[in-house]
């Protein structure tokens, strides 16, 4: 799709979301079910969140209030060949709506800090084919999307504010090739991808770096609703596009629980992850995270809570204090900080015509502490070591939505596995 067509389509979708009208109409194909009960056909969706955030302190004791259209996405999912072929795409328009990022205390990465960076326009576009051989199911996924590492994208989890650990716990927006094998309750994925992370919303990554990085993930489904994974990744020079920056060695383990509880919809996640940064085989830095989150819903109400304890590097900032030099200058950082965040959220969904509208309120209490003895002082910089973030908004959407984001083929619930 050319830039102009992309622009026009995206703007139309944005306008539709903002105005609360259904833009898709007959463009949303009716799903059909194959003989295995799987959805076949094409499903489209458009979603976004109107958001107002008040945060205090943000810098030097000062508070800030901002409003956004965040997470504006167009999604498409095609399932065919009795579920053996699947294509999925997500167009993310934050490059237009979050040019300067979104206030998100503690969040960092891709040159932003304390603001969540906009994702790339081409957030995800993958195709998967699956076969069965000798009692083993196998799938191959190629395209641009998530490496088989860590947990689901925060975009499809209960909260509007991202956890601090996003860049420790997921690897996304890469050119990937992923083989997944499943036998019984055990799924193993191996993937190759390009290590460079996006440098801008327009970034398409360095295709010629495909294969310089890899990830492995093992998942066990021991009981209904329980998913346990452990994953390992080597990411070559994510911050230096030319491949001459620090390399990352990453670990992740998590347990996810989504039981069937009658009228209740429940969800829980326990996550641990760690990233070690290396220069020529020598470990320079290590950052880690623990996170627990859960949600409980009934009828149209849902309540969620999250606790997170993550460390992050403090990097040299630009004149814009929410932007950082990347990659590290001289391989140095200005210190490291530990972020402990408590978040609570309540939401109630309604349907207006064909439009799903979910107003919500979300509050976070954040404590930040310096841990490496560097020159960065949270108290000096923020004006306090205790921060608040309050958000009110409404998630608005039409059509289908990706329930999970970060797994493909046999590793995706409801995917091509039997």
């Amino acid at each position, binding site marked *: 799709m050319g830039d102009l067509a992309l622009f026009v389509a995206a703007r139309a979708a944005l306008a539709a979301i903002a105005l609360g009208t259904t833009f898709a109409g007959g463009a949303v194909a009716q799903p059909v079910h194959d003989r295995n009960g799987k959805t076949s056909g094409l499903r489209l969706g458009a979603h976004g969140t109107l958001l107002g955030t008040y945060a205090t302190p943000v810098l030097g004791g000062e508070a800030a209030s901002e409003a956004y259209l965040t997470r504006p996405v167009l999604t498409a999912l095609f399932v065919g060949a009795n579920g053996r072929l699947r294509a999925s795409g997500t167009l993310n328009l934050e490059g237009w709506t979050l040019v300067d990022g979104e206030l998100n205390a503690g969040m960092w990465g891709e040159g932003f800090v304390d603001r969540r960076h906009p994702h790339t326009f081409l957030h995800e576009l993958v195709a998967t084919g699956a076969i069965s051989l000798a009692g083993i199911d196998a799938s191959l996924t190629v395209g641009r999307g998530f490496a088989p590492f860590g947990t689901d994208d925060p975009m499809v989890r209960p909260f509007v504010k991202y956890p601090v650990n996003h860049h420790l716990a997921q690897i996304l927006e890469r050119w990937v090739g992923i083989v997944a094998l499943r036998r019984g309750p055990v799924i193993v994925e191996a993937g190759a991808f390009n290590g460079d992370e996006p*440098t801008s919303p327009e970034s398409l990554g360095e295709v010629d770096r495909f294969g310089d990085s890899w990830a492995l993930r093992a998942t066990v489904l021991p009981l209904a609703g329980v998913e346990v994974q452990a994953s390992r990744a080597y990411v070559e020079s994510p*911050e*230096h*596009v*030319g491949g*001459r*920056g620090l390399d990352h060695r990453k670990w992740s383990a998590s347990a996810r629980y989504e039981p069937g509880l009658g009228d209740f919809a429940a969800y829980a996640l326990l996550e641990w992850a760690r990233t070690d940064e290396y*220069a*020529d085989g*020598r470990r*320079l*830095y290590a950052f880690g995270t623990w996170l627990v989150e859960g949600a409980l819903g009934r009828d149209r109400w849902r309540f969620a809570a999250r606790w997170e304890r993550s460390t992050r590097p403090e990097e*040299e*900032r*630009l*004149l814009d*204090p929410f932007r950082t*030099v*990347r*990659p*590290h*200058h*001289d*391989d*140095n*950082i*200005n*210190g*490291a900080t530990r972020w402990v965040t408590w978040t609570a959220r309540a939401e109630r969904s309604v349907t207006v015509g064909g439009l799903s509208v979910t107003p919500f309120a979300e509050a976070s209490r954040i404590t930040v502490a310096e841990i*490496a*003895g*560097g*020159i*960065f*002082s949270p108290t*000096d*910089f923020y004006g306090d070591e205790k921060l608040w973030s309050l958000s009110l908004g409404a998630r608005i959407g039409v059509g289908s939505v990706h329930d999970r984001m970060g797994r493909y083929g046999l590793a995706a619930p409801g995917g091509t596995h039997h």
Partner: protein
Amino acid sequence: MSRSAGLLIAACMAIGACDTDPVVMGPDDDPFDGDPIAIPVLGRGLVQERVTAEVAVDGTWAYTTTWGQLQAVGNALKVWDVSGPIPQLVDSAIVDGAITLGDVQISDDGALLVVATEIDNGSIVVFDRSDPAHPVMLSRHMTDATRSRGVHTVKLGRVDGRLYGFLAVNTGGTGRGQLVVVDLSDPANPDEVLVLPLGGPNLHDVFVRDGYLFTAEWDDGISIWDIGGGGRGGSPTDPVRIGGVETLGGNAHNIWWYHAPGGEQRYVFVGEEAGGAIGAQSSGDIHVVDISDMANPREVAFYTIPAAGAHNFTMDEENGILYAAYYNGGVRAIDVRGDLGSCSDSEREAATDRCELRLMGREVGVALEGDSYVWGVARSGDFLYASDMNSGLYKLDISPLR
């Protein structure tokens, strides 16, 4: 009896003669043999609102830059009267639109002061030093070649009587760094005469002397260029590469080409900045490269301190002492006279076949270890000035080592 007199007598006894001219000495007749001395600290000029960066000194005047962000951003050049034991702040200049002033240099005739700005609005700022207590800005050179992520370091050098600024420019991590050469013959109107992509992933620093240019190219090691003194037809506008070497561990950060009193010009010292948390932790060695054959330099020795890292150097060449800013390791004085590539097996790292200067007993002085984070050092006579990122400017008495 003063320490220096004692050292002189010890040296006389060791070598059996007392020449008034400096002599080239080896480890066996080392007057500094034994534990390194604690270099006396005379005083400190405090800087609390900003992070202090590089220091330059001329006589009784010193200049420090500021870096990054503390309570205020690093946009200030500070002017110090260092005639007394405690540096006294007498003036400061704010550079508009800057967040980091990294490097500062004084021209060989003392007339100019040049400051680099980086991160945002990369440039060099040229000051007139007619009144050294109150430098006056003459010009600011900011072009497409310098602007992106800015000028990380600037070194001044005179070639065929013409003053040039050699700028190491950071391009932002997407490609290579670049060398930018600026003709400062008319300091009010700097003239950009060369832009040369160089270094992987960046060009960090240069050293200019006698018509040679040395470039510290991070993981690409160092290169030696003829810019008018090497007889290969090079010039500042068209450097001719003579040779180079990738120093072990990469991260080639800064360079000093040592001219020994006896005329030997065999060694260059290369700082390796290997990462750390600014203000607290650091790592990286000093690499000794033998350039007897400039086309084929080879690393012959190194200096290392556990849990500390090298940063910028200066030298007391007359006495053969290299002073290294060593971040959380403070200031280190290293005796670099004589043959640095010859040592016993116990002083040699077998895996790399390099001599280890500390094991050779060549560390002769230490200061500010443990309670500072030293960015740079500059010498004037018997005094060494050390810029501590955490607290300001120190004045040290190095007469015991002279």
